[in-house]
């Protein structure tokens, strides 16, 4: 009996030691829930170096950000390094869970609500010196529960891209550039020949949403408080798209065997497409011989409308040196620096003071910037990314589906998250 007890004790001792070792081993990783408050107000300050995490589109972008951060570092005397993430969402989540997030990072509109709700983000927007320079619609994109969280990094709107060779071959001139839905339908019909469709775009909310905007509809009301996916305007937009998917003048990129609108456009599977300014880079590298022209999307029943896409410079609530981070972000969002980024890898500046220079430097791309005046953002409520994914999966079957039924299901999904 005694022996048995001794052995048990020893066993228990071993386990306890093991557990203790484990706990001390893990301890450093899971310590603390953050020291600073996530509300507006005081910023943390220390001598610690900054880490900037970006989801880079390629070497050009990585190098441009590295150079800019290095220049700031030299000027301010605070050390800073740039990390190009392979999977930004995952690496950020890891950082937040371990309470050692990067200080400054790229943040997309569909992620901001999730991180804001768990207190990972510092809402620093109102402290920016250049706050009033950002386009108001972009500021709205990054405002959650009345707090302006982060500085818009850059943006683009969707516009109509036209293949000029196919355009002239179909006997069309500049005067024919469509300004209404009817005109769009008629030029698409003229441009549809053989394997080339008139208008090809991705079969997803992020493209078809532009038609919804032109019809005067949106998924979530402008103040973000009400779901209005099943509005008559949205039904009208989807019905219009459906009608022309059926008559074969519009097509989804996937249905013509392309990954996205730009690829379909480059391969001349579509004479027109709806994309943002990122298409210019893709066309330049993959299809340098395709000549194109950017025009504003035609106006719908309720006038002009488009969607805009943007990212911001997020700041971590757990960052030990927020003062320096704010300074860095102000530096990176100045008109001068954004124009330099634009030259290096093509994004469109998010500040109004850079507009004129950008327009004269990129005269062919002006419609993208003009769109900022009437563009609407994509929903940012927590959980809306899921709803949009579900919407997209239903839009894939729009050709044979029932627009009203699709929008009703989106409405019920949205009502569950928009309160």
């Amino acid at each position: 009996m005694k022996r048995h007890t001794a052995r048990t004790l020893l066993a228990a001792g071993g386990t306890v030691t093991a557990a203790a070792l484990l706990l001390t081993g893990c301890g450093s990783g899971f310590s603390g829930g953050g020291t600073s408050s996530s509300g507006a107000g005081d910023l943390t300050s220390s001598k610690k170096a900054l880490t900037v995490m970006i989801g880079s589109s390629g070497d050009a972008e990585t190098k441009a950000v590295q150079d800019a951060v290095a220049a700031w570092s030299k000027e301010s005397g605070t050390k800073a390094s740039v990390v190009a993430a392979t999977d930004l969402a995952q690496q950020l989540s890891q950082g937040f869970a371990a309470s050692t997030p990067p200080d400054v990072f790229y943040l997309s509109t569909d992620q901001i609500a999730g991180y804001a709700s768990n207190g990972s983000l510092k809402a620093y927007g109102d402290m920016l010196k250049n706050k009033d320079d950002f386009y108001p619609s972009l500021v709205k994109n990054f405002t959650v529960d009345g707090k302006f969280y982060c500085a818009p990094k850059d943006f683009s709107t969707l516009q109509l891209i036209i293949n000029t060779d196919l355009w002239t071959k179909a006997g069309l001139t500049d005067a024919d550039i469509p300004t209404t839905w009817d005109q769009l339908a008629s030029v698409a019909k003229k441009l549809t020949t053989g394997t080339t469709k008139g208008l090809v775009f991705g079969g997803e909310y992020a493209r078809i949403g532009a038609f919804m905007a032109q019809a005067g509809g949106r998924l979530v009301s402008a103040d973000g408080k009400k779901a209005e996916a099943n509005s008559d305007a949205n039904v009208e937009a989807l019905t219009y798209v459906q009608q022309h998917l059926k008559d074969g003048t519009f097509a989804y990129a996937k249905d013509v065997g392309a990954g996205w609108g730009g690829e379909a456009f480059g391969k001349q599977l579509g004479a027109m497409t709806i994309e943002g300014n990122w298409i210019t880079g893709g066309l330049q590298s993959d299809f340098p011989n395709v000549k194109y022209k950017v025009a504003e999307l035609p106006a719908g029943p309720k006038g002009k409308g488009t969607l805009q896409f943007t990212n911001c410079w997020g700041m971590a609530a757990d960052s030990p040196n927020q003062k320096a981070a704010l300074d860095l972000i102000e530096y990176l969002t100045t008109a001068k620096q954004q124009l330099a980024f634009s030259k290096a890898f093509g994004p469109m500046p998010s500040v109004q003071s850079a507009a004129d220079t950008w327009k004269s430097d990129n005269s062919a791309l002006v419609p993208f910037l003009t769109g900022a005046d009437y563009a609407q953002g994509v929903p940012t409520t927590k959980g809306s990314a899921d709803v949009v994914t579900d919407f997209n999966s239903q839009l894939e079957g729009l050709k044979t589906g029932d627009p009203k039924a699709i929008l009703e299901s989106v409405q019920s999904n949205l009502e569950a998250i928009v309160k």
Partner: protein
Amino acid sequence: MTSTVDTAGKRASAPSPGGSRSRGIHRGEGAAGWLFVLPVILILGIFLLIPVLMALWVSFSDWSGRGSPLAPGVKFIGLDNYAQITTGGGLQERDFGTALRNNAWYVVLVVPLQTALSLFLAVLVSRRILRARGFFRTAFYFPSVTSSVAITVLWLFLFSFAGPVNGIIQGLGGTGHNWFNDPRGIIHVALGKVGIANGPDWMVHNTFLGISWWEWWAGPSVAMCALILLAVFTTSGTFMLLFIAALQNIGYELTEAGLMDGANGWQRFWRITLPQLRPTLFTVITLGLIGCWQVFDQIYTGTKGGPAKTTVTPAYLSYTSAFQNQDWGMGAAIAFILFVIIIAFTIFQRWALRDRPVSKRRIRAYQPKGVRS
């Protein structure tokens, strides 16, 4: 490990009736034993036990992904996370139902196909008369050692709209498919061919996990079928290896005896070889089931759940809800439901493949005619 320590302890105490462990040449053996197993306990504990227990805790908590899940602010919320995906009635429940539907079809097709194919290949390359056996074994095994990401990329290319697979189909006079963009379930497609476009009312209006029974019976989508082929292609080589090893362990005597009794090749395989492979069959099916329910990398690198969510699997859904939507509790809950499903399947097939006495019907079949009583 434990038994070794136990016997050591007994032996140590034998010469010292007083019960004191401090004397004799065996003293301290217990401690030494613990010292030897400590590295394994530590490694398994840090990398297996503690993460699993923490994930279990997360699935019952409202942890939001910031700071430690064990921090004081994180609350226990019971089965809320589980309820949201199984009875919530919202998008999450439908997503989970869809993921289970997709993965169930994947399992139903992949496991039998890969088991049959690997057994077939193993029998083929074990034949004595086959020349260049080494070459064939290597060739069949090759897909298994190639990274699944590389094979997925290859698959995306092969099954693309203008890819080689469609080229071959068109060359044979068929029409190509838009493989990875076709969300239609193959059973629905087949039923559509014979004129049934809509299911009976009871199937359309009754739902399970937010998905109507008609949708449950849609079958794997065309896109999922391409992934099913991929899985069969990559895994059958691995399992072929297991079967080859098992086949080499089977003596030739029984086969020879069967030959003498006049059994033909087919009978020898079904009645003599296959029954002896049962332990290996169990291993292969178990590994196949586990692998199939956990399918993730092909989805993550290939389809991202599309088209129309028909390749979303529970493992991928768990990842997206945690890392992209910051619903960590729900992601963990999905993972644990998946765990229960895998365990249940394994127990079931253990039962199905158990050793059974030969049935009377079977015995009668072996008896010469006229002896029946």
